[in-house]
Structure formats: structure tokens, C-alpha cells
């Protein structure tokens, strides 16, 4: 299958064989579920339950906030024991508002919306589908966690003509999407057709990397039911799963800088998102579980597990035989773009595609040497930037200079850091610089607001001083008038009264 050429990228050691042949298994229900209010991009959800409430499986426990947000549902039945600040699965180790549920082990379902069981064309309207997807709390399951209903809504603002399903799974170790495509191909295709129907697009491309031949075969087989789903095999190269590069490889269209893929008519959804949409529409169930790959040479038994959302990583690791040997790094997501976990006591959330226990050999860290200007990073960058020059500017403190030569177009894929023979943390420099520029931006807007407050206050003080002066002048004038009238022969009691006030 022929695809368009994408420049740059790196060839990785994938180690997928550690878990690719392990079928998805269920795990025992954990004793407690920790559900953060923000498992998505946007505003945190607002709790609708209180401490002490009994909740059922699939029940709404936090509704979507106004604007960009998504609701949260209980992953099992039990009692709400706390709504408090709990450590987030985020490299900062900061806390966020989390609803903690003690499960009762009975797994009783709440009342669910009526499933849509008819065949295509569906009996419900696209807007009805949108609201169901929104109500189920479905977000991008590839890791980005963008609310899917908002993505479906793009059709009202952009001219869309294609749905692209991202089955690339280009990160090493992760096999959750691979297993999903192999084991539930029919359900995935059903979800794809529902999404295409909701977006009202005619063409669908299902992109899978060549290193997943069984998944390609399974999806090709399942897609026969719908002739306009085209399955494309893509070269195995990181970061093929990056949205912009995937669109370029499959369609030849290049997303303009700072714009969405919707600007060129394409919407991209992850395979697991499509599967979740199918589950919601066909059975009414909200998003309360996901497949997670637990892998790396630091875990005894790597596996792909269907995890109830809110399960602690600790429970997951115990289920997989525990950490052995003690890993050098515990990562959430993939090794290229994932982040270290602050502790094992953090929950699995909607965007957690993998938990990796990596040994020092696998991480292959080394002491940093000076940059030898080999240019490997320039060849590896899929965005056409010059990482060595940007990193040098950031190191010197010239963030604005780095911004001028393209820092904002960096997608933080990490290809440059991977390929650097001097072990320079290039991608880390760019993450720092982007964050710092964002913070400066926020700060400058805050300063603008404060400056207007100060100006308003100065004006008010000036006005008050003016009023005071005017009143004092008026009193003085009245005094003078009174004194003038007393100089005249008839001094009436009235004028004396006036004088005394």
C-alpha cells in the first residue's frame, strides 16, 4: 500500500513482543477507586455526589463544566468516601480534586440510556449521537484526552470530508490498540461507522503501522462490511501516530502551522475511542474502563488489562506479578512522549494507555556531552526544525530567539533527544521553553489587568481629591459670603445660621 512520504522520524526498538501476544484480560475489582475530576483537556468536572452517597456502576458522579469539559462516571458500585485533593498521575506530583469510592464488590449497574441497536443508516440523528458521546464522557483515548463530542462538533464549523482512524500505535511497548483491533475488530469497525455517520463524512481511512500484520488482517476483514472504509498500512516509523504526520502520510495534505487538521477537512480519532463510542451507542454504557498495557523488563508478567478507571497503578502492578527488578523509571504512557509517575499510588485515568516499568538498560541514559553538531537531530525532526540551535538558545536564556526559529511548531515527540549521540535532553529544553513562554504570556496578561486596576484606582483617588477640594472651596466661598454679609448693617439670624453650618 502506497503512502505519502513524511520527512524525519526515527526507527525505534519497539519491544512489543513483551505483550503483543497476551490477550486482554480482566482484573479483579480494586477495593477503592480514585476518580479525578479532570481526566481530560479542559475544565474539571463538577461533582454531583456528596461524601457518603451510594453510587452504582456507570452512574454520573461529576457533570461536565461549562465550556470544554467532560463528565465522570463511577466505574463500579460502592460508596463515596471522600472528595479531596489527591495526587494526580502527572509528573509534577501535584494534587487535584478526586472522588474516592469504596467498592462494595457487587458491580451493580445504574440505569443506562436506551441502546441504539438498529443497523445503518441509524435511526438517531447525528446531534443525538453527539450528545450521547458527550454524556458518556468519551475523550481521546490515545493519550491526548480531548473531549470527543467537541471533536465531532467540528463539522458545524469546518468543511470536513474525511475521518481518519489512528491505529498506528507508534510508541514502543504499547500493544493495547493492537490487541483491541485483533480481538474486537467488528466492534471497532462499528464504532468507526458510527463516527463517520455522526460526522457526516463519506470517506474513511483506517491507518495501521506495518508492524501489526494480524491487526491489519483483522481490520481488513471486518471492514469488508463497509466498502468506503480504506485500510492503509503505514511504514513503521516514529512518530507516525502524530496527528499531523498521519494526515500527511495518508492523504498528502499538510496541516498548516497553528491550525487544526479540520482546517484541511480531516478529523482524526483513535481506535480505542471508536471502540468506546460503539460501546456507548450500542449498549448505553459510559466510559468506565480501558485497556492498559503494562510492560517493560521491570515487570514480572507484562500484560494487556481491561482496567476499571480509577484503579491505582499499585493494584495494576500487583496483578502483573510486581516489579522485578526494581525499575529505573516508572512511566505513564509510552517511553517517547510519556511522563514519569510521581508514585505508584496514582489512579489509571481515561488517557492512560500504558504503564511501563523500564530498567536502566532499556532507558539507556548517559552522561551529557557537548553538542558535536552532527545534525542527526535535524534529520530526525519530523517538523523540519533545527533542535540543536533551538536548544542552544534556550540554554542561553534566549527563549524569544528559540520562538523565532520555530519552537511553537515543535510537537514534543522526542525524536531529537532519542537520536542525539551526546545524550543532550533536547526535548526537555523545548518542553521547558514552551512552558516558560506560556507562563510569561499568562503573567503579562495578568500584569495588563492589574495595570488597569491601578489606573482605575488612581483615577478614583484623583476624583475623590477633586470632590474634596471642591467641597472645601465651596465652604470657603460660603464663609467669605457670610463674612461679607455680616459687614453689611442687617445681619439676619438666617445668615448667622448659614454661617454656623
Amino acid at each position: 500500500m502506497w503512502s505519502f512520504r513524511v520527512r524525519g522520524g526515527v526507527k525505534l526498538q519497539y519491544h512489543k513482543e513483551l505483550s503483543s501476544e497476551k490477550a486482554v484480560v480482566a482484573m479483579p475489582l480494586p477495593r477503592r477507586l480514585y476518580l479525578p475530576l479532570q481526566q481530560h483537556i479542559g475544565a474539571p468536572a463538577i461533582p454531583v455526589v456528596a461524601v457518603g452517597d451510594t453510587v452504582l456502576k456507570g452512574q454520573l458522579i461529576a457533570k461536565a463544566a461549562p465550556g470544554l469539559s467532560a463528565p465522570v462516571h463511577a466505574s463500579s458500585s460502592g460508596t463515596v468516601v471522600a472528595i479531596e485533593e489527591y495526587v494526580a498521575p502527572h509528573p509534577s506530583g501535584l494534587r487535584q480534586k478526586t472522588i474516592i469510592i469504596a467498592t462494595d464488590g457487587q458491580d451493580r449497574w445504574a440505569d443506562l440510556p436506551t441502546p441504539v441497536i438498529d443497523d445503518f443508516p441509524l435511526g438517531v440523528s447525528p446531534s443525538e449521537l453527539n450528545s450521547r458521546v458527550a454524556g458518556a464522557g468519551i475523550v481521546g483515548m490515545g493519550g491526548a484526552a480531548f473531549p470527543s463530542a467537541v471533536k465531532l462538533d467540528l463539522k458545524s464549523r469546518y468543511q470536513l470530508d474525511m475521518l481518519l482512524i489512528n491505529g498506528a500505535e507508534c510508541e514502543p511497548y504499547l500493544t493495547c490498540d493492537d490487541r483491541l483491533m485483533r480481538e474486537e475488530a467488528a466492534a471497532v469497525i462499528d464504532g468507526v461507522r458510527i463516527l463517520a455517520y455522526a460526522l457526516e463524512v463519506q470517506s474513511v481511512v483506517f491507518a495501521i503501522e506495518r508492524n501489526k500484520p494480524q491487526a491489519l488482517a483483522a481490520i481488513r476483514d471486518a471492514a469488508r462490511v463497509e466498502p468506503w472504509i480504506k485500510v492503509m498500512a503505514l511504514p513503521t516509523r516514529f512518530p507516525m501516530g502524530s496527528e499531523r504526520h498521519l494526515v500527511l502520510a495518508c492523504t498528502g495534505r499538510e496541516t498548516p502551522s497553528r491550525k487544526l487538521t479540520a482546517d484541511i477537512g480531516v478529523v482524526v480519532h483513535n481506535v480505542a475511542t471508536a471502540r468506546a463510542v460503539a460501546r456507548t451507542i450500542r449498549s448505553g454504557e459510559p466510559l468506565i474502563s480501558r485497556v492498559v498495557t503494562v510492560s517493560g523488563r521491570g515487570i514480572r508478567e507484562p500484560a494487556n488489562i481491561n482496567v476499571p478507571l480509577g484503579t491505582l497503578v499499585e493494584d495494576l502492578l500487583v496483578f502483573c506479578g510486581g516489579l522485578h527488578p526494581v525499575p529505573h523509571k516508572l512511566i505513564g504512557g509510552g517511553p517517547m512522549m510519556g511522563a514519569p509517575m510521581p508514585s505508584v499510588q496514582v489512579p489509571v485515568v481515561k488517557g492512560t494507555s500504558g504503564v511501563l516499568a523500564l530498567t536502566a538498560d532499556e532507558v539507556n541514559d548517559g552522561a551529557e556531552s557537548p553538542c558535536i553538531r552532527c545534525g542527526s537531530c535535524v534529520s530526525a525532526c519530523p517538523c523540519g526544525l533545527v533542535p540543536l540551535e533551538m536548544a542552544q538558545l534556550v540554554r542561553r536564556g534566549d527563549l524569544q530567539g528559540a520562538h523565532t526559529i520555530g519552537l511553537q511548531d515543535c510537537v514534543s515527540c522526542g525524536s531529537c533527544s532519542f537520536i542525539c549521540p551526546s545524550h543532550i535532553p533536547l526535548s526537555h529544553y523545548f518542553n521547558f521553553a514552551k512552558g516558560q513562554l506560556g507562563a510569561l504570556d499568562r503573567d503579562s496578561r495578568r500584569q495588563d489587568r492589574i495595570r488597569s486596576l491601578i489606573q482605575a484606582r488612581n483615577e478614583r483617588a484623583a476624583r475623590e481629591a477633586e470632590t474634596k477640594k471642591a467641597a472645601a472651596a465651596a465652604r470657603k466661598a460660603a464663609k467669605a459670603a457670610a463674612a461679607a454679609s455680616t459687614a453689611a448693617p442687617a445681619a439676619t439670624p438666617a445668615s448667622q445660621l448659614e454661617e454656623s453650618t
Partner: protein
Amino acid sequence: MDSTALTHAAQAVGAIGLLGTALGVILGVAARYLSTPVDDRAEAVAALLPGSNCAQCGFAGCKQAAAAMVDGRASPNCCPPGGASTAQRVADLLGVHLTMDASDAALPTVAWVDEERCIGCTRCIRKCGSDAIVGAAKQMHTVLPEACFACGLCVAECPTQAIAMKPVAPTLATWHWPKPKPKPAAAIPLATE
């Protein structure tokens, strides 16, 4: 020296002298008519500063600090309440190179009223340049953090030392990766559970 050598010498001196004079005149005219008016820059810089005359920079007021920055007597980052963004903007305006090294930047602070100590005298309210403190006579005072720019005047004003400057902790929304250290350090332990 003979006459031809003298003529040559005179010609050389004359030519260089003429050239020098001509260039000097051109430079003088340019300095007069093409120079950047300094007043504009001082005003532009003053417009970027908070404008509350809190004197944390050591100058009497924001206008004086702006004049000093234009002259080069003060560095663009001499205004603590302005923060890093103000320093960057002033530096950009004046064409001064400023090293934005976040590793030695202090955490931003805001004022905080200790409710145990506040006596409701309203002295801080009247002093605050951005009206960031709300309260009334004999009522509890409190600081609105989004309006406070940490000039510190209220701290000095309070008769019971009820106001302190507290650092603003990062939240999930505002946290970002720190600058990479030259030698990879071990992860920083935050708390023991």
C-alpha cells in the same frame, strides 16, 4: 623637502581633512535630526510598568525608574512586582539582552491576611495601589490574589503585622517542566505517604 613633495603632502592633508570634515558634518546632522528622542522611550517604558509607585525598585516612582532604565542606570528587571514578563517587555523595547533564566527566578508572591491578627483598621486598603484588599472598618480584610502584584506596601502599613507575602504554589494548570540541569539529579521527593 622639495616643492613637489610639499605639494603632494599638502594635497594629501587637504583631501583627508576635507573628507573628515564632510563626514563629521554628516554625522552631526544625523545625530541632531535622526536620533531617537529619549523622552518617547522613557514614556513607553513607564507605560509597561505597574504605575503604583511602590518604590521596591529603589527609585521614587515608576516614572523615575523608567527614566533610569532608558539611561542604563537600572536593569530592565529591577521591578519585582512587574515580574518576569514586564522585565522581558522592557528589555525588548530597549533592545537590551536579558537572560531569562527561570532557575534563579523567585516564585511569585501575593499578600495574605492573617485573620487572627487583623483588627479591621483599613490602613492597608487605603494604601493598596490596585484595590486588591477588600474589607471595611471593623470588618475582616482579605486580599484578592488575582489583583495583588506584590508591591509590599500593605505589609509595612499593617500595625499588627497581620499581612505576609506568601509564594503562589503552581497548580496542574500552571506547572511546567523546569530547565534541565547540567547533571541529571535524582527526582525531588515531595512528601512521604
